[in-house]
């Protein structure tokens, strides 16, 4: 049995305001869950995650792996009978999870996003090779996936030098605050 805590509507209110999505219309028909290709990697399927938010179970929702495993492919919401933009809800939950400093269920995914953003901040475009190297360095894991990396290098699918934009001022305007690495404690 789940006892709703006092003020349980607060989380839903915040996330609704931030994302602009009214997920209270959710029928829990599970169409999203049946459509999602990555449910296998999630602790809560997409509709259950919405339920957690509706019931104000903040810790469970923000510490879920679901919000990080979701790639925003829009498969769920293109089938949702209530046209609920689930990936937009996930965006807001991720943002809140990082801001509140809860335990992050998928630190590798966050660290990948951080590396991507850092190369965009530096060059205005992503630089795959640098992202991969730094990501691997942080994980202290160079051996897994070596084969794939080498194949990509050989086929020139990982350019050695970054492609960069000329207008550095523009980047400063966009990245007003420097991208900081999110500190994540491994669970």
């Amino acid at each position, binding site marked *: 049995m789940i006892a709703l805590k006092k003020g349980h509507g607060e989380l839903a209110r915040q996330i609704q305001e931030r994302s602009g999505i009214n997920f209270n219309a959710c029928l829990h028909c599970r169409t999203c869950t049946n459509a999602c*290709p*990555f449910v*296998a*990697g999630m602790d809560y399927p997409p509709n259950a995650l919405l339920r957690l938010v509706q019931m104000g179970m903040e810790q469970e929702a923000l510490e879920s792996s679901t919000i*990080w*495993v979701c*790639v*925003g*492919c*829009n*498969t769920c*919401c*293109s089938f*949702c009978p209530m*046209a*609920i*933009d689930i*990936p*937009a809800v996930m*965006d807001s939950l*991720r*943002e809140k999870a*990082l801001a509140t400093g809860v335990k992050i269920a*998928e630190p*590798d*995914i*966050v660290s*990948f*996003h*951080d590396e*991507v*953003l850092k190369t*965009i901040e530096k060059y*205005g*475009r*992503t*630089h*795959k090779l640098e*992202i*991969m190297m730094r*990501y691997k360095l942080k994980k202290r894991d160079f051996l897994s*996936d070596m084969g794939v990396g080498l194949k*990509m290098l050989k*086929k*020139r*699918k*990982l*350019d050695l030098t970054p*492609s960069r*934009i*000329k*207008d550095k001022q*523009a*980047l400063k*305007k*966009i*990245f*007003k605050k420097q*991208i900081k690495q*999110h500190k994540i404690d491994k669970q």
Partner: protein
Amino acid sequence: MGKKTYSFFPGCSLKASGHENTQSLLKFCDMVDIELEELPDWNCCGSSSAHSVNHDVARDLPLRNISLVPKGQPLLIACPSCLIRLKQSFLGLKNDGNLQKKYEQDWGRPFDPGLEIIHFFELFKRIQLKAYIKDPKTRLKGIKVAPYYGCMLSMPPDLRNEPSHYGLMEEALSSLGADVISYGYETQCCGTYLSVAKPKLSERVVTQIISRAMDAGAECLVTACAMCHLNLEIRCALKNPIPAFHFSELLSMALGAENQKKWFPKHIVDPLPLLKQRGLLKS
């Protein structure tokens, strides 16, 4: 016929790892009298990463690109994910007066609500292929191909009124004589960046997609997304997977382009044996 000019946004995937996609796309457009002008000094759209961890940056990156488009030119976006990012930003801008003010301040250009942002599929629909090929049915004759869209046809609710492109590759390929295979996994997402951070998860979906296509009798896959193409190539756990083409490669080939020798060696799964076997490539 005069050439029509489009502003062209390649995006990071095509720029850095999908060289053969870019080259064949440019070739195709050139052959059908379309001139692509690369958007000057374009930047990354922010992709899923900005969306995941930094909302302000995710909002601002696409806006600068929008401000760079020469007036009157439609903007062609090669990558389906970049397309959604830019379209959503454009829509956000259209509906938000304050954001328009900020945009004009930041980028020193008035907001142009008439800007047309389109995907390659939309451009393709405007072309009369028959005007360029006399014997279309012979061009890809006999090749058993499984179209793969990944998540590109799935639109978030705010873009639901966008034109739908279901069946576009099927129609195009069969009009060129190919044998189109249906296998039920055409619109299963490839996992995008999970390929890096959760390789096992993306291996699972990619292997499933390719096995189903092979079970249904496909000899190759065709995709219109450089990111999907890469994942299909690097994350398939099968020993002898079938090759995957970029849609633009098959189209240019069908039109009689001759510079494939530069494209195909960039594939990790070599498509040449298949093309030779089907007599689709001259020596």
